[in-house]
Structure formats: C-alpha cells, structure tokens
C-alpha cells in the first residue's frame, strides 16, 4: 500500500494544482470578513457568531463542491495520455489504486479543513474578538465537517474515475449539493440527506451534548451508510472498468 501511496503523492505534488487547497481559507476569510449575521443569535460570544456565519456558507456549498474538484484533480493525470492503462498494468491490485487515491483525497480535505481553521482564527484576530479562541468547539466542527465529507468524496472519486471530463462529475456534484440549501431547513429531511451532513456536523448551534453536533445514530446511519454505499459503488465499478 505504501509504494502506491507514495507514487500517488509524488504525481500530485509535482503539479501546481495543490494551490487549490488555499481556496478554502481564502473563502473562509472572505465570508468571515464580509458576512454580517448578527441576527443569527450565537449568544454573547463573538466567536460563536463568526463561526455560525462562516460555517454556514463554507459547509453548505463550498466544502461539498471543492471536494469534488479535488477528486477530479487526483484522477486527471490518469485520464490524460493513457495513465490508467499504464498504472493498472503495474503489479498492484485495482483495489489498492482506488484506496490510495481515496486516502490521498481525504488527507487533502483534512489539510484544507485545518487551513480553514487557521482562517477562522485569523478572522477573529483581524476583527479583534476579545474572548479566547473556543478551540474545544472549533475542532469538533473542523473534524466533524471532514467526517461528513467522507461519503461525498467517495462518490466524487467514483464519478471522476467514470468520466474523463471535469465538468461531468462536477455536474453530478452540483445536482446533489444545490438542494442542500433547501434540505437543511427541514427538520424532517435534513438529517437524512448526505450532502447536508457537512453543514449539520459543522453547525455549532447543534446539540452540543452530541460529540459532533449531531446524534450518533444519524452519524452512523447517514454518514456511515452513504459512505459504504458510495465507496463500495466506486470500488466495484473500478474493479470492472475496462481501460
């Protein structure tokens, strides 16, 4: 597993496209410094107000969409100039190729989450928020958001292997992500929609007694279930893909 992982990282690290990760904190800074959601009612702590308004836009649209772009990025150089057939004629299983691309992807998403964490802090410093940085809450939100994207990343990896173009997997991503704006308003459907989970798990206004602002059973059934479905789908498809 390690050799293919290091080869995957090598290929990616040589392309300048990793700069895309910086878009995360940039968007964070932008929302944090422009948005003015005083009416969200985050309590007396200014950090909470910031977090609520920043996480809303970031988790609702940006995170699901950009993870899809990243998935396409790690497949792009295989789609160009016959990369798949060279890679798959190597002495390794297709399963390992799929898993190593997936691990690489979720590591990238984690890096972006941490950069976003930095941007939250920076926004607070720029705005001169007097209260101490509520790391005990923020880390839950950052880590929870990451966990919630695990199934989405699996689906997008599947789509990115399936389609050669960037636009097609992105279109699939958009079709599922846009309805989230409506779905999160519904107490009935919100908890069951996989694309709404990044928002729910980063929403610090959720139940703070739950470890990730959502109940465990929701986490396991919705995030875990959709992860199994999408990961298995992509994995099996890749096994049978003719190259």
């Amino acid at each position, binding site marked *: 597993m390690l050799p293919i992982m290091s080869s995957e990282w090598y290929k990616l690290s040589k392309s300048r496209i990793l700069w895309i990760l910086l878009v995360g904190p940039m*968007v964070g800074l932008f929302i944090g410094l422009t948005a003015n959601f005083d009416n969200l009612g985050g309590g007396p702590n200014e950090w909470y107000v910031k977090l609520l308004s920043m996480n809303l836009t970031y988790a609702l*649209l940006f995170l699901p*969409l950009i993870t899809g772009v990243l998935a396409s990025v790690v497949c792009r150089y295989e789609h160009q100039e016959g990369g798949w057939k060279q890679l798959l004629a190597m002495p390794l299983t297709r399963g390992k190729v799929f898993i190593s691309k997936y691990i690489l992807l979720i590591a990238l998403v984690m890096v972006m989450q941490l950069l976003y964490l930095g941007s939250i802090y920076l926004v607070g410093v720029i705005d001169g928020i007097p209260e101490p940085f509520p790391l005990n809450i923020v880390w839950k939100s950052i880590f929870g958001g990451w966990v919630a994207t695990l199934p989405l990343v699996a689906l997008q990896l599947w789509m990115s292997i399936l389609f050669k*173009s960037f636009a097609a997997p992105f279109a699939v991503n958009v*079709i599922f992500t*846009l309805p989230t704006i409506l779905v999160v308003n519904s107490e009935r459907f919100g908890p069951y929609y996989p694309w709404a989970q990044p928002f729910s798990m980063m929403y610090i206004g959720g139940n703070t007694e739950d470890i990730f602002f959502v109940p465990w059973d929701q986490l396991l059934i919705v995030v875990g279930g959709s992860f199994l479905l999408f990961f298995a789908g992509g994995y099996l498809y890749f096994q049978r893909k003719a190259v």
Partner: protein
Amino acid sequence: MMMRLLRVDFLKIKRKGLWLLTVLGPFGVVALQMVNYGVRKDYLLQQSENDWLYYIEYISNFTHLAIVLGIVILTSFIASIENETNAWKQLIALPVSKLSVYLSKFTVITILLFISSVLLLLFSYSYGLYLDLGEEIPYITLLKYSFFPFLAALPVLALQLWIATVSHNQAIPVTVGVIGVILAYSAFTLPDWMIWKWPSLINGWDKPYINALLGLSVGILLYVIGMFDFKRRDVK
C-alpha cells in the same frame, strides 16, 4: 461561415449531456419548489399576502446559483470537448478566424442558457398554476425573474468561457466557478459592482432591470476581452 461553425459546435455537444443539463437546470430549480410546496404548502401560503410573488421569490433564490453553476459546467464541457481530443489545433487550422471559433462557442452556450430561461418560465408558470396561487398572475414579474438572471449572468459566462478555453487544466475554471457560486450565494453582502451578485437581481436601487442591463453591457465587454486574449494565444 458563422452558421456552419455553430452547426458543427451543436453537433459536437451531441450525446455529451449538455442538452440534458439545459433541461435539468430549470427543472431542478422548480422541482425544489415542488418538494418545498409539496411538504409545507399550507405553511408557505400563510406566510405571505401575495402567493405568486412569494413563490417566484422562492424560485429565484435558486435561479442565480443554478445559472452560475450551469455556466461553469457548460463552459468547462465545451472547452474540454476540444481539449480532450486535442481538437483545438484541428479546428483552428481550418480556414476560419479564431474570433469566430470563440464567438461560436459563446453563442452555443448563450443559446443553451436562453433555452433554459424559457424552460424556467414554462416550468415555474405551470407549477404556479397547479398550486393555484391566485387569479392575478404577475406575468411581468415572472418574465423578469426568468430572463433577467440570464442577462445578468452574461459577464460570468464571458469570464468562465475565457478561463475554460485558455486553461489546460479544467480544475482552474471549475475552482473559479466554485468561488463564483460562493460569491453568488453571498450576494446579499456583496458590493453592487461584483458581477456574481448580479444574477440574484439584488441591488441597492431595488431595480432588477439595472442588473440585466449591467450584465448585458459588461458581458459583451468581458466577451470581447476574452475573445482577443484567445486570439492572441498560441494553439496548444
């Protein structure tokens, strides 16, 4: 010459799913309201005095996002059709001007978006009728909210087409598009001069037609800049 190029470009987008997306976009926007009204119609009807306007406003909450994302997808698709097959060099080597090649791509997407807008009008009108939102149908508003976002989004179209056609790596235009949709989503807090705000039809004067006019004029300007930059570049 232009007609022939256009015909070729329409031929190239066959079976690529672009027509499907053209229909799916407006359908999706209205379908979301079908779900919304299907689940809580009574509550929504209580919320307002003028049910038609309220319904149109709900739809328009999604129109500008769908249109910005639709533009990102369509422009990237149309550029990658040439990129993937290395067909730019073949196309540019034909006895046609590079300017008309670019214009043809722009026109194809404009036509697709226009069709989307017509469909949006039809879908939202029919579902509105089905919902029985009242006798007085605000035709003018319906027209405005179907076609103004399209006109106001022309600068975004010009920008995305430009980036998509000159980028080797489609990750770049798509990422710019993601940033664009975040800006569009934050339209409320954006200053009036940002092009991503315009499709939402929000502005300081509360007059949607200003966004449409701005879109049309700045769209043409950005289109011309993009076209000349495309012409200037070497073919890959």
